[in-house]
């Protein structure tokens, strides 16, 4: 075990993957000498050279499109998109090309491309630097979408994503980059465990589902709820697509209540999909409709207002109270 920050765990994972497989290469803006604006690739170009750690021109569509070409040729590219809000120029290459190539080629062409996206808010940035675009990708068949919440998962899940033969969108919660934790780099994960949810805290009364940046907030909320007599089970979703419904339904059938929290807007978000699917799968076990505590349906706000937009401990507890029927329902909802 080594004590690593979230970002060091990612850096170590990239290094180890590159050492294991010489077809793994990194592409992105400023990832070479600078080591990326978040320093995730720090020192890698020095050690692996400019053909394996490639500073690309400023063109996200170009980066992903070229990564597809490299994958065609047998490489295993790991792409860094500098910030969440800059992924959209690459949207066509991701959605129309990367996601569909395996299907279009009748399974002949595999594109093991990993797209790393630092995402989410809470760091006081200007616009386009704090977004949560995961639902766009989860909605697209052919893409797998995962998000680690702690240094160990950052290390393990990134290595698994790179080794996966399908394209993986790897959502990194940038405001947790400095979180420190014990990381076992020798750990051999079970096959398929990249797409498993993780029950982080067991509880009887309510299932609280979070991923990425809000997992820590969810755990804090569960601790705070103890004082209010509510025993919360916290699940780190880890894989946004595919969803580990086996773990989720077992929990919800036990607790009868579910709360989903994410930073992204509520309409058409991951919470909507989980809420509908869990209702379908657990309807007879539910004591209350699933509750969602999320960002509002607004463009990401300026830094001085972001604390209102981002779900925090109090807003999650407010949602818990509604699920427990301690609070009146929201405007527009039934009691």
């Amino acid at each position, binding site marked *: 075990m080594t004590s690593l920050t979230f970002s060091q765990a990612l850096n170590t994972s990239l290094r180890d993957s590159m050492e294991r497989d010489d077809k793994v290469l990194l592409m992105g803006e400023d990832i070479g000498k600078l080591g990326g604006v978040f320093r995730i690739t720090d020192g890698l170009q020095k050690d692996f050279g400019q053909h394996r750690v490639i500073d690309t021109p400023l*063109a996200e569509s170009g980066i992903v499109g070229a990564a597809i070409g490299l994958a065609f040729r047998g490489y295993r590219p790991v792409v860094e998109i500098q910030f969440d809000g800059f992924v959209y120029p690459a949207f066509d290459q991701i959605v129309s090309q990367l996601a569909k190539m395996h299907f279009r080629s009748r399974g002949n062409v595999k594109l093991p491309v990993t797209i790393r996206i630092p995402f989410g808010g809470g760091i006081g*940035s200007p616009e386009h630097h704090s977004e949560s675009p995961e639902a766009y990708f989860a909605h697209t068949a052919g893409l797998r979408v995962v998000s680690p919440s702690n240094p160990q998962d950052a290390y393990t899940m990134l290595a698994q994503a790179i080794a996966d033969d399908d394209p993986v969108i790897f959502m990194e919660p940038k405001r947790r980059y400095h979180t420190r934790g014990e990381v076992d780099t020798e750990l051999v994960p079970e096959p398929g465990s990249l797409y498993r949810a993780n029950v982080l805290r067991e509880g009887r009364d309510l299932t609280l589902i979070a991923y990425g940046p809000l997992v820590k907030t969810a755990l804090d909320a569960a601790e705070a709820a103890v004082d209010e007599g509510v025993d919360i089970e916290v699940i780190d979703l880890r894989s946004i697509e595919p969803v580990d419904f086996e773990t989720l339904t077992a929990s919800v059938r036990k607790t009868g209540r579910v709360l989903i929290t994410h930073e992204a807007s509520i309409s058409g978000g991951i919470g909507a999909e989980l809420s509908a699917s869990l209702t379908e799968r657990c309807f007879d076990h539910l004591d209350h409709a699933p509750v969602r505590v999320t960002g509002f349906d607004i463009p990401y*706000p300026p830094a001085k207002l972001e604390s209102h937009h981002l779900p925090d401990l109090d807003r999650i507890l407010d949602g818990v109270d509604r699920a427990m029927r301690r609070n009146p329902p929201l405007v527009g909802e039934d009691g």
Partner: protein
Amino acid sequence: MRLRLAGALRPTGMPRLFPQSMQRMLTVSLTFDSPAPEETENYLQVVAPDGTRRPCPELDEWVKDLDVPALEKLYIDMACIRRLDMEGTALQRQGELGLWAPLLGQEASQIGSGRALEHDDFIFPSYREHGVAYCRGIDPHDLLRMWRGAAPSGWNPYEVNMANQQIVIGAQTLHAAGYAMGLKFDGSQAAAIAYFGDGATSQGDVSEAMVFAASYQAPVVFFCQNNHWAISEPVSTQTTGYIADRAAGFGLATWRVDGNDVIAVMAATRAALAHVRTGSGPAFIEAVTYRMGAHTTADDPTRYRDALELEEWAAKDPLDRIAAHLGGLGADLEELKQRTEKATNDMAAGLREAITSMPDPEVEDLFTNVYSHPHPRLDEQRENYANYLSGFAQEAEAAK
């Protein structure tokens, strides 16, 4: 008007010993680990770094009117935006701004072009054009509120004929092309101008913007400040040749100028504007300049940039050059210094006052302006959040 392809790349200063192609060959063959050919040989220049006036047939006619008072005004403008920039960085360091993108070194490019524009011309900037915004007379509050994190943007674009800052690299160039198509369809004499950097030229949007502008012969000037660095990536990551050459390939009239020479920039911008106003199609200016500061206050250029390169560019400073030129013309530099000091101090005081008097945004602002008319679901969210917040107020009241 003819395309300026050859003209723009012709030497403007000292006579050459060899034709350009041969010179490039020599440079490459004689130098181990050869750097790019010396750039100063390949752009238009009116005033050399030491302040001497150079004859420049391509540009001279466009700046015949610039007498000493006019040049002094350009100097004061550049000093003001340099001060504005220093204050921006200082305010960020003091926690008053969330971020700042320094323009240091690019004063001539921004003032030279900004002062060439007419009021009706419409500007589509990136995020570093504080100097162009200054030329538009934008209020300090409006200049700073986005950087303070207090609002999504600063000014009303229609009040100043300048779109809000664009952070997504190169996206604004298409907006300029479209705006210019509208100008043409309307029979307007105004022009659009897009500002962007060397890094942006790699974005598909920028190429597409040139395609649209050329296809519809739209009155738009693409103004590329080649400041040599896109965060940590040198311009050689974006192109192996001259950026201006690429524009020529799209059929745009093209000028490559010394971006630290305010007179050359002004001349080229006037020429480009005149070209597009005559309906001769879009134009492109590559202003060769240098980002003396960091990409933003969140960046540390010492990780990737050689200090010697900074020194080299410091010797081409846009302000020193015009001061030396004015000295040569017999201007009273002492008196100019005093006027400059007053103007820059006033500028700094205005910025300070703007920061101290700027109110924090209201929670209500979260939900305002997402749509132009009411949206039922968002209205519910606004109401629910207000109820949620008032619950805290009631609890606090009850606890008293």
